[in-house]
């Protein structure tokens, strides 16, 4: 009872500094946990997002660029390929599904992608799910109709019956609008994939859009491929055929490994963020030390009284160390709230920008070691003022300080 009572009373007596210090710990802890969780979750989520495909066939260039462009709907297109390449790979016996896509337009910043209706019926997303319509129907390949991804529909308020005119290019330019008008005929249920951020129209819609080069009217931007079995043999053969023997096309496979390259390239960002988080944690720990150490002058009499009542030096020492640890505990409780806030914000931005879904509530090992580490660090920081308290002479400090 004695130590908890002493700690509780001291925290209460120094309420303002307790909360300020706890808040700095909370910021540090929240940031530390968020950096780790965002890093790991985004890596896992991006690597896990293949939108139901095993590989991508596209123009010669970077595999990462091709995957980002066709699967994640980010980045510039490395170029177009003839429709015949799509037909060729579609006829490969090992290929179960081949979906051609054509890019080049947007509507208010969201990509307008030409494709075939097989995308909605034949592609199996993770967990055996398929694209499903929340409202309306799939588009007619011969009409100017569109199916809108769930995220775009919510953001732009599009619903079946609405009409829109796409803009040229992948980046929204209000002065570069196409003449064609499309009618929204369906809205997809959120699939938690980058497809949620896309407005899907018939393949020919993009190919034949006014302003596009008529010479490449039959070209496509890439082919998304799903194999019949998971054996890498066929994929290796295609890899050899397109990437080693040929020099016109790029076969990006496996998608997860290529996405991992992206994270390898930006690994330094993680390191910088982690370093910042560690520094913030150190500063916060230092603030505990300074805050308690500076309050020692006003605590001298209380400590002398406690000693005069029979408290041992080690009891006083333990109370100060425990107080530092208790501030860290308070801070780390708050840190979970801050972590949740940061994660919610980050998840919202990541989803808006990439369509990849992060889960702010997902547990992570850092939620164990970061609080434990912060509390241990704080207790360590408490040793310095505790040592000062330990050495306070009793007789000299029993008189009131005027």
């Amino acid at each position, binding site marked *: *009872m*004695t130590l908890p*009572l*002493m700690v509780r*009373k*001291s925290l*209460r*007596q120094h309420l303002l500094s307790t909360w300020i210090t706890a808040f700095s710990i909370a910021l540090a802890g929240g940031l530390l946990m968020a950096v780790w969780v965002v890093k790991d979750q985004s890596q896992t989520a991006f690597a896990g997002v293949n939108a139901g495909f095993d590989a991508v066939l596209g123009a010669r260039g970077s595999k990462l660029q091709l995957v980002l462009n066709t699967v994640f709907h980010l980045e510039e297109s490395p170029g177009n390929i003839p429709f015949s390449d799509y037909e060729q790979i579609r006829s490969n016996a090992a290929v179960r599904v081949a979906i051609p896509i054509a890019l080049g337009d947007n509507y208010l910043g969201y990509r307008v992608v030409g494709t075939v209706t097989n995308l909605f019926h034949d592609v199996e997303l993770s967990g055996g799910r398929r694209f499903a319509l929340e409202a309306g129907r799939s588009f007619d390949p011969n009409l100017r109709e569109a199916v809108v991804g769930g995220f775009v529909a919510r953001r732009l308020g599009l619903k079946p019956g609405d009409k829109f005119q796409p803009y040229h290019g992948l980046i929204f330019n209000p002065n570069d609008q196409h003449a064609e008008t499309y009618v929204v005929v369906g809205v997809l249920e959120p699939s938690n994939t980058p497809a949620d951020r896309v407005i899907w129209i018939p393949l020919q819609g993009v190919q034949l859009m006014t302003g596009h080069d008529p010479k490449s009217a039959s070209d496509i931007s890439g082919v998304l491929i799903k194999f019949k079995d998971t054996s890498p043999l066929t994929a290796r053969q295609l890899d050899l055929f397109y990437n080693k023997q040929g020099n016109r096309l790029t076969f990006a496979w496996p998608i997860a490994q290529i996405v991992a390259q992206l994270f390898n390239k930006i690994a330094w960002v993680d390191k910088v963020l982690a370093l910042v988080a560690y520094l913030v944690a150190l500063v916060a720990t230092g603030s505990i030390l300074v805050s308690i150490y500076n309050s020692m002058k006003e605590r001298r*009499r*209380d400590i002398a*009284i*406690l*000693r*005069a*009542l*029979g*408290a*041992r*030096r*080690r*009891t006083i020492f333990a109370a100060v160390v425990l107080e530092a640890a208790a501030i860290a505990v308070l801070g780390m409780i708050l840190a979970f709230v801050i972590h949740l806030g940061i994660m919610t914000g980050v998840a919202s931005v990541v989803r808006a920008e990439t369509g990849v879904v992060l889960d702010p509530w997902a547990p992570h090992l850092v939620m164990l070691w970061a609080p434990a580490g912060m509390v241990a660090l704080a207790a360590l920081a408490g040793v310095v003022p505790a040592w000062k308290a330990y050495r306070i002479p*009793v*007789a*000299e400090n*029993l*008189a*009131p300080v005027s």
Partner: protein
Amino acid sequence: MALLEIRDLKKSYVSPEGAPTVVVDVPSFQLAASHQVALSGESGSGKTTFLNLIAGILAPDSGSIRIDGVEVSSLPEAARDRLRATKIGYIFQTFNLLQGYTCLENVLLGMSFGPGPNRGFAEALLRRVGLGDRLRHYPRQLSTGQQQRVAVARALANRPKVVLADEPTGNLDHRAAGDALKLIREACEENGAALLLVSHDRDVLAAFEHHQDLAKLNRAAAAGKEGCP
């Protein structure tokens, strides 16, 4: 055998000039169990240092202090802390209550360093000193007289063998001082504790059958070498 027995007790401090200054030099002093003795002591007579030595707050340079058969002067600091928590009650002139703790918590905390907190006894003590309706009040919410009564309850909380009182009425007005003194003496008597009270108030001293002049008892004070902190 005396409850408190002191022989050749000496304590000196090093002055700012670097010279050792003897502040306590008591050849002999005794206090029997359950007895009540007042020491008259003017400012600078070394009375607080004398009481702090008995309480084990300070270690003597030489000499012997025996309390209930235990040689205090040779005990290590932790053992002196323990002895203070179990056998000695201390009432200070400035009460020395912990401002962040309620009346009850002040008494309970004193107990927790000794035999352990006993809420029933702590409440009974506070009721005895007339603060039964102030258990959850903080010291700042009490008058000075009431604060002194909390200090009395706290000093008796661990059923000490001896209560040391350093100018316990020094901060009280005449009427409150009389009430406080009566309470301290009665409470010590009821709890079987010996009382060693130091005061320079003639009225307080006159209330005791046994009183001694600390200035005569302490050779350092008598020799005019005082200068205790």
